[in-house]
Structure formats: C-alpha cells, structure tokens
C-alpha cells in the first residue's frame, strides 16, 4: 500500500495534542510504515512540498496567522481533522471570548501584576506580528473540517485507532473509555 502523506500543525494550542501523538509509543514504528510526514513540527518541514492526504490540526484560531495556516491546510490536504478540545471548541484560549479585546491587551501588557518593563505602555503593534482575532474560533468556524477527535489531549489510543481506520479503511471502534476525557 502506498504511504499516506500526513501534515500536522499546532495553532492556538499547547502542543499537548502533538505530545499525545508521541504517546502511541512503539506503535510509532508501525505508523511510519503507513505514513509519510510532510509539513509538520514532527519533521520540521515548514511548507507543503506535495499534496497531502490527511491534515491534523491542533488548536483553534486566535490570530490572523492561525487563519492563514489553517486555510493553507485546507487548500493542501484532502482530509482535515480537528484534534483536541482547542481545535474543536476553542479550549482554554477561548476563555478570553466575551471579554473586550482591549481589556485583555491592557491586562497583559499594561496593568497586569507581572508587567514590569513596559514603561512606555506599548501594546504590541508591529506589522510583522499576527493580528489578534475578535475572539478565539474553533477550526470548523473558519474552514470545513472532516473529522473531530475529542480530548484534552485526545488519548494516544484514540489517535492511533482513528488514523489506522482512516488509512486502512477499516471500521472504527471507539469504546467509551477512549473518547471520554474529563
């Protein structure tokens, strides 16, 4: 069987979902027989070099760069998977949703108890920086997402079973223990 091409990224996430991928332990050797990684922090390929079969997204979108990366994944991947709470629902970063963005920025850069050196009270505004979105969005509110794997992080077994099922076309059997996560 031809190897499937996989790409992964972490948007507004904590890389915990990527860590959970590594938690498949020695099965990673089996995985590498099934897939080839393209753009991904796993192999540090920065740009897409060929059409990708499966794109795995960790994290939601909190800024314009996240949106651009996610859109490029949609463009280059046949199938997109939202992996974990933040990609599916916004997760912890989405706690800022509902608080006016100016208030968040002032707390982070001007008024917060840990702000020491910003004597000129500058809010980061260089053109090189990504622009913050009005709220943190789950991925499916930006582009079409094909599959969702829940968890914070999703269990390694869930990621493994889901990937194998998707690649080999076998039936996916997910017992309750594998998808419950709180």
């Amino acid at each position: 069987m031809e190897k499937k091409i996989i790409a992964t990224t972490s948007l507004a996430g904590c890389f915990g979902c990527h860590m959970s991928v590594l938690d498949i332990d020695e099965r990673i050797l089996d995985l590498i027989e099934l897939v080839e990684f393209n753009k991904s922090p796993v192999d540090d390929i920065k740009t897409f070099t060929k059409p990708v079969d499966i794109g795995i997204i960790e994290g939601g979108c909190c800024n314009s760069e996240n949106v651009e990366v996610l859109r490029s994944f949609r463009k280059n991947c046949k199938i997109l998977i939202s992996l974990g709470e933040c990609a599916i629902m916004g997760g912890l970063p989405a706690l800022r949703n509902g608080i006016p963005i100016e208030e968040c920025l002032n707390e982070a850069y001007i008024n917060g108890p840990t702000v020491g050196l910003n004597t000129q009270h500058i809010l980061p505004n260089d053109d090189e920086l990504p622009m913050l979105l009005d709220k943190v969005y789950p991925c499916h509110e930006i582009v079409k997402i094909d599959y969702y794997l829940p968890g914070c992080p999703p269990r390694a077994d869930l990621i493994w079973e889901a990937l194998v099922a998707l690649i080999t076309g076998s039936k996916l059997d997910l017992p309750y223990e594998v998808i419950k996560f709180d």
Partner: protein
Amino acid sequence: MKDRIIEIISKYNGDSTRLMDILHDIQAHAGYIDEATIALLADKLTLSAAQIKETVSFYHFYSDKPLAKVNIYLNDSVTANMNGRKDVLKAFEDACGIKIGRVTTDGNIGLFSTSCIGMNDQEPAAIINDRVFTRLTPYRTKQIINGLKQGQHVKELVVEGCGDGNNALPIIDAMVYNNIRRKGALLSHDYPLFTVIKDILPKTSSEEITDIITESNIRGRGGAGFPTGLKWKFGSRAKGEHRFIICNADEGEPGTFKDRVLLTEYPEMVFEGMVAAGYAVGADIGLLYLRYEYKYLLVYLNGILENMRKNNFLGQSIAGIGDFDFDIRIQLGAGAYICGEESALIESLEGKRGEPRDKPPFPVEKGYLNLPTVVNNVETLATVVKIIKNGAAWYNQLGNKDSVGTKLLSISGDCRFPGIYEVEWGLKISDILAMCGANEVQAIQVGGPSGTLLGEKDFDRELSYSDLPTGGSMIVFNKNRDLLSEVVLNFMNFFIEESCGTCSTCRNMPYVLRGKLLKVINGRGVKTDIEDMVNWANLLKVSRCGLGQTAANPIVSSIRNFRHLYDALVQKEIEYDSGFSLETSVLESCKAVRRQPLFHHNA
C-alpha cells in the same frame, strides 16, 4: 440604612425563604442592593453572601448597581417590535441622550430592555417605575421624557386615563385594557361569587370535590395539560406536616396575557379556586406567585384577600367547616420567565434562583419547603370553581373528546381585534383567524415561542392537547412580515436571555443556533446549515426543563413549515461557507493597538 435593613428583615421574622420580599423592600428603599447590604443579609439570615448574590443576580428587577430615579423597562416582545418598538426606542434614546441599558449621567433616567410584560394586545408597552404605559408612540415617548425632565411624577405622565373594567378602579388605576372579546363557560358572569365556599364545600367531602374535578377531565391550563384531578389526588395522598396550593401567576410565555385579565376581572374566582383546591387536597396554605410585571395589581389583590378573611372565606374554620383552615399569601416575583416552570417557581418562592429542580420527586410529593405542593395555573383554578358549581357532566359537554372545556386564548399580532377570547377546545385555526379579524395571514405562532409556527397548510388543524396544545398564546403574522428576522430571531433572543443557565445545553445551544440563523439571514448560509440546525436542536432535549427542551422550537418549527424561506436565503453554488471574515474579525484588535490591518493573501 443598616437599621432600615434590620427592620425589613425582622418584618419577615428573619426568614431566609422570604429573601425575595426582603430584596424587594431593600430595592424599593435604597434603589439597589450593594455589597454591604448583602454581607449584612448573609449575617442576619444565616445564608452565605454567595447565596444572596445568586438570587440578586438572577432576577431582572433586582440590581446590585444604583439604578436611576426613574427606570424605564421597554418591552422587547415580537409584537412590540411589530408595532413600532424600534421608533419608540429611538425616541427614548434620543430624548434621554443614552443608549438602552444605560442610566443618564445625572442619574435621573434609566432605560432598559425587558422580555414580554404581558401586554401583547397593546404594544409597544413599557414599565416605568412599576407603572405600565401601553401603546407608546415616538410622540408620547418624547412627552413622557420631557415631563420627567420637568420633574413630573410618573403618575402625572399618564394622560390616556384608565383602561376598562377594574383597571379604572382607583386602587389599580392602570392604562391597561382587558380587551375581552369573547366570553364562554369561564368568563360569563353567571356565577354568584363564593357560592362554592359558602354552599358547596360545607356539604361535600374533600374526596368528592376531587372526584368532581377528576370526572370533569380538566387538564392544566398553563400549557402542559396534566390532569388536574390526578394532581390533586397525588397531593392529598402525599404525607407532610403542611400541604400547599400554589397558583402560578407567572405567565411569561411571550404573547400570553390571559392571567392578567383573570386577575383583574375575576380574582375572587381564582382565590375561591385556591380555597377549593386547598379543601380537596387538605392544604392549609395557599401561595399566589405573581409576576413582577403585574405588580400594579398587588394592592388590589391583597385587598380582596383581606375582604375574604373578613367574611371567613379565608382563615380558620372556613365557612364553618370545623377543621378547614386555609389562608393565601401573594408572593411577588422579580422578573424571570423560567419561574413559570413549577419547580423553578417553588425555588423562587423559597428565596433562591429560579432554577428548575430535577424530577422526580415531583412537587406533589416534595414541593415548597420539601412538602407536598399542588401547583395550578390561574385559569385552571378559576375554572374549577365553575366546574364544582355546575358539575362534571356540564363541563364534559364543552370542547371535544380529546380536550374538554374551554380555553382562554391571548391573541395578538397582525389582527384587527387583539385580546382575550374564550373558546371551546376543537376550534380550527382558520376559525380563530377569522374571529380575530386577521387578513393576509402568513403564519400564526401557537403556544408562544416554545410552541409551533404554523402556515396556511395547517390552518384547518384544531386546538387540542393531542394535536395543537397551547397555553393560549396566539400571535398572528401577515404576509408582509419577514418571519426569520422579525419573528424567529426575536424568539431565539428571548430564550437566550431567559435561560437560567443550569444545563449547558440550554445555556449554549441556543447561541449556536442563533449564530447559524444569523448566518442564513445574512446570506452566508449553506444547505448543511439548515440540516445542522435541525439535528443539533435535538441535543436540547436533554435539558432539565421545558424552557431548554423547547428553546429550538422557533427554528425547528419554522424550518419544518417554512422551509422555502430558508432555502431562498442559502447559497446554492457552494457547499461550504463558514461565514468567517478575517478582514472584519481583526478590526477590533487593530484598533485597540493602533495599527492598520495587513493581509498576506498569497498564503
């Protein structure tokens, strides 16, 4: 201030279950309920400050911040909007110089939005310092604000005079109209008041009374339709030191105003029904939970109770029945639709947030103060009086086989004669529309937002518990109305505003569904959005109470019966559109940090 609060607490014997009354008194005295007051209350009532804050923050008409001297609550119901609320609101905002939700800088006038206040037949309406103003126009609005600015009392601003019937009594003195358009078995004035208490109860056993009600086949008139006789039987069998009869006068379903009219014109019958229920169930205490929006009736109603006590229709050994003691107290709500749900109402009566309880146990077993409690609708209690007087057989002749008796309909919207109609069950929708003078009808909302939106193909259906149940709210929409943006969106806003927040489904899903609806209305929807709304709505079924379970009904029933409106708005040429715009979503943050948005569209 502190002394006054202690005085208020002792007025209610330091009883923490009377927190609603205590907060009302403090709010009336101080204008709001501050941190220091909460701490003092916590101390004196042996509650935690958090418990008191929970209650204060839950209800619409309590405030933890200073309000204005004059507070205007402008109704936001669908009929208010159909009758020009937008212009009235603008006139208020312009005249006051503030946006809605704010108080003027001099602290004189506050302008707020509120959910349906039960005046659907005379909209747009507002409550100004507990006084109801109906049929507002931009012109009247300017006059009112000018009057207030010149220091006139709110009472002096009523130039319309009083409404009809008892509304004109000095003790009520409200510019509210009853608009009774059709009388039937319940509303016809053929009943000498208190006959049941005076002549029938002394000669009839409590079991016999319950049997009459059971045989009459009357079902709860609030909308859910539980057989009243059965409820009474359960209540009388449940064990407890006390039993309670609660009259649910918290009609908050947008579009319904029948209880307002019953309590204005037929309060004696309602109270007499409570006494009869108390006799049948073996209860000793009756509680009428009056929605805050009807506060203008409170003094009047208390006066009637006082007269009943004088005549021994309340109190000890009522009508000479040796062991029958029963009295009634009126509890004022504080603005929360959810308190119409019986267990939420009971929580509220105990001074807590109006959050529905898990059931079972049902209130008949463990209700108010965990004792057996029968909760009946105002209309049900008024009707039982006539049933006891005229007999079960008389009542069974009315209505149809599935649903006996009559029903009060509160009809509003696009019709010539909005108001109260008493009809027999089994009436066709088309007959209702003809009766109220509705032409060019596009749709009718049966049973309020939690009910169903019906179109022409359903106009030959009949009102009945098995097919078209209703608490009586009927709102008519003519062919010029945009059902999605004027009606469905308004109803979704209502459910989002009124969710108590206990169940995550009801707290969140209506937001998600409203987002989808707006996406469709704004032309960004796709076909799957319509299917998603129908499928996701099912999740709401796991909510604890009827509010959550029916919160998607405006969307689901409009998709079912007006699918073409949705189909016409969604994009045909593409299958997916998230509705997201990067360009607009960065505007707020770029403004905050003072930079120009910059995009790399070659990504």
